[in-house]
């Protein structure tokens, strides 16, 4: 797992329920705005279907490293916070590292206990979507440079 994500995970795991909520709120507030050129590409192709709110993800390769961008509404702080957490934890990682992130990351973060079963599946969908896009983009990238 990328070191940045590992550090976030450790912090969440060592926190109590309220601290986890506060951390997720901080992440939600710190989600960087989309670069202007991606603003216009918030379309169905980039929308995460599993999420109840309009969540958009963009994956690019910068050299051999993954660059992630995302957006989610402020009225849905849970998913916005989780997108922000993943961006911070995964940006700059290699595609292999991203693909190795455990599928039950939401559980490992201790968020299922906080949010309840019905709320966390959309979050897992965000991670699945990132992995799918990383596979696609990294493959295209390798294909074009090798």
């Amino acid at each position, binding site marked *: 797992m990328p070191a940045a994500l590992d550090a976030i995970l450790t912090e969440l795991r060592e926190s109590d329920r309220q601290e986890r909520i506060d951390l997720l709120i901080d992440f939600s507030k710190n989600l960087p705005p989309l670069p202007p050129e991606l603003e216009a590409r918030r379309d169905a192709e980039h929308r995460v279907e599993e999420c109840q709110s309009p969540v958009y993800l963009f994956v690019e390769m910068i050299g051999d490293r993954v660059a992630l961008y995302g957006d989610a509404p402020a*009225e849905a702080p849970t998913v916005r916070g989780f997108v922000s957490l993943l961006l911070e934890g995964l940006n700059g990682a290699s595609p292999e590292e991203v693909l190795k992130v455990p599928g039950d990351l939401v559980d490992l973060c201790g968020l299922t206990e906080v949010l309840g079963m019905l709320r966390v599946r959309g979050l897992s969908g965000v991670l699945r979507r990132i992995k799918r896009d990383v596979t696609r983009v990294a493959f295209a990238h390798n294909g074009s440079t090798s």
Partner: protein
Amino acid sequence: MGEDYARPEVLVSTQWVLDHLDDPKVRIVESDEDLLLYDLGHVPGAVRIDWQGDLQDQVLRDYIDAEKFAELCSKNGIAEDTTVVFYGDKSNWWACYAFWAFTLFGHKDLRVMNGGRKLWIDESRPISRETPKYPRTEYKVAGGDEPAIRAFRDDVLEHIRAKRPLIDVRSPKEYTGEMLHMEDYPQEGSLRGGHIPGAKSVPWSRAVNEDGTFKSAAELRALYEGEAGLKPSDDVVAYCRIGERSSLAWFALTYLLGYPRVRNYDGSWTEWGNLVRVPIERGAGA
């Protein structure tokens, strides 16, 4: 409210809530789809009651029992005669759901803040991040209202045999059966798509305005009576996927239009669409 509602006192304005923030007889309750919204900032003095963590049993698919409900009220400083005002996100879906759940236990003085969380924030009213503490009460559950407002699957089977009206408040594609699970809610999947035979489609969103407030009584009558053919004397069952959006329809029919006999089928499509050998209708319906 001046909207000609049957029970206008049940719907309070944001201004009313602002005027009663320090009223010891009033408890403001936030109930949201997104759990974090309360922590992000809420109506000053409001407590959080979560539909999933607080009102539902964590093992059975059912609501908490009377003992747990009494504890929930007691620790939030709610007494039997407290005026409880619900508000939340998503045009008050979950606020209506919590209102309905409180009614199951027989709490009498319940209200909904018209416009919900969105309107409160849009009007730049005060927000607090402090979790309030209230003196504990010894709440005694009155109980007894469940049969009047809750329908189970066998009640629904009987209801369709008797050809009584049902209202399906899901989106049009869920109603016709084109969509097996609502795109945005994969966790509420069903094995079959369609609707309960005879149910009329009235998507929940048509009962509310853009700003999250309820439509006027005349507009609601045009919707439920003009379009869906209901009559105030009808015995009505409303459903959706898990019973939350239909709580909003139940609220509108019962309190805003004054229908005396409306039940919410909280098993809804996540139960019906998975039951073996119950009748299902597909397509645009009647």
